[in-house]
């Protein structure tokens, strides 16, 4: 595995990644954004494009964070941050909220991940088989239940190890669930053929991208 510097390439910043994902979300979709990196996607969907954001704790039609002096202590998201509710928004209990997820009613879920495999397997909840106290939250429900699952993550670990792999080595969240991956280096579809590159960061070559990816990359054809 080559770890040469990406010379001419300009990897996307986190806000640029969020904006790139937001660009692909059409009006009318019901969308759940996972805790962590994906949460920022909402900030890049213009308010006039009506996308309905869902939070596992029974909030549908979630709006942005409130001003500091306008916090409603009864209104939090799944990350336990204060949020707002848009006009048209509603509340429900947990079983209904997860019926939206598990019943295939969400058009899209965007999750962070430790690893995604070329067969669409995702590992995003534990990094060891014997974690001291594993915490899964709603990740398995979201990964298995949404109509489409996109992953948003850095292309490699901080140490440069690939996160787009042939087979996940960490405990799985769901099998064959991921449809698309947005990283700081590329947009990649998961297809029956494997990983197909749809878009790359400015200045990056295909060879440089492959060098940072364990599984074989394909060009659209």
């Amino acid at each position, binding site marked *: 595995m080559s770890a040469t510097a990406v010379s001419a390439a300009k990897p996307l910043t986190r806000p640029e990644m969020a904006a790139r994902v937001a660009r692909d979300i059409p009006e009318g979709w019901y969308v759940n954004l996972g805790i962590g990196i994906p949460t920022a996607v909402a900030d890049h969907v213009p308010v006039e494009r009506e996308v309905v954001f869902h*939070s*596992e*704790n*029974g*909030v549908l039609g979630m709006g942005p964070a409130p001003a500091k002096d306008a916090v*409603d*202590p*009864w*209104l*939090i*998201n799944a990350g*336990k941050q204060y949020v707002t*509710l848009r006009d048209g928004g509603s*509340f*429900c*209990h*947990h*079983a209904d*909220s*997860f019926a939206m*997820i*598990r019943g295939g009613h969400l058009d899209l879920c965007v999750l962070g991940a430790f690893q995604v495999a070329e067969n669409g*397997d995702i590992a995003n909840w534990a990094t060891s*088989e014997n974690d*001291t*106290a*594993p*915490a*899964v*939250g*709603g*990740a*398995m*429900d979201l990964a*298995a*239940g949404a109509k489409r699952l996109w992953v948003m993550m850095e292309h490699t670990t901080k140490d440069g190890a690939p996160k787009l792999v042939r087979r996940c080595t960490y*405990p*799985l*969240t*769901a*099998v*064959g669930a991921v449809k698309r991956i947005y990283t700081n280096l590329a947009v990649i579809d998961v297809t029956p053929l494997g990983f197909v590159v749809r878009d790359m960061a400015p200045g990056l070559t295909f060879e440089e991208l492959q060098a940072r990816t364990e599984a074989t990359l394909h060009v659209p054809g």
Partner: protein
Amino acid sequence: MIDKTVRTMAEAMAGIQDGATVLVGGFGAVGQPNALIDGLIEQGAKDLVIAANNAGVGHTGLARLMELGRVRKIICSFPRSSDPVVFETLYRAGRIELEIVPQGTLAERMHAAGAGIPLFFTATGAGTKMAVGKETREIDGRTYVAETSLPGDVALIEAWEGDRWGNLTFRKSGRNFNPVMAMAAKLTIVQTQHLRALGEIDPDHVHTPGIFVDRVLHVPYGDPSGF
């Protein structure tokens, strides 16, 4: 006359047995029945199985109950929090059992218990370690995992409004697990911010009908704070 209201915490907690499975509502601090949890601490039942989304924060509430050695097992989806020190210490020392359950499966297991459904199949967790040791079934080409219902002996619930028949409303994201837990337990105990006269809650606005509720205690504590 049906009157499910109780006037004291001791009345609210009466009869909770050692070894009981207690379902505790709330998601973060919102909709969490803190007064009832403190009442359970005071009441003294031990060897408890607690089902809740989280495993306690700091040294109060559920964390305090665990710290006192009263909880044998916790069933939850997310035992991490901003300050999970009590749970993690007990867990590492092997002094508390953990059953980790995907959040939607946790909600549905209680919903099923309340609806008289002992077993159901879900795609959540198929092909993962959550499915190990469980029955699986192929239905229309997809693999599903069998999950059992999760009935409680007791549910501790926080409502926004309640009346003497036990009809309840909840406030915003404070609804969360409360309605499904109210359905799933043999003894459902509610703390409510507002106690309404019978007929005062618009029937169209009732979230949990009184049939699922046994005791209502008026605890007008104000707003949730901290997670």
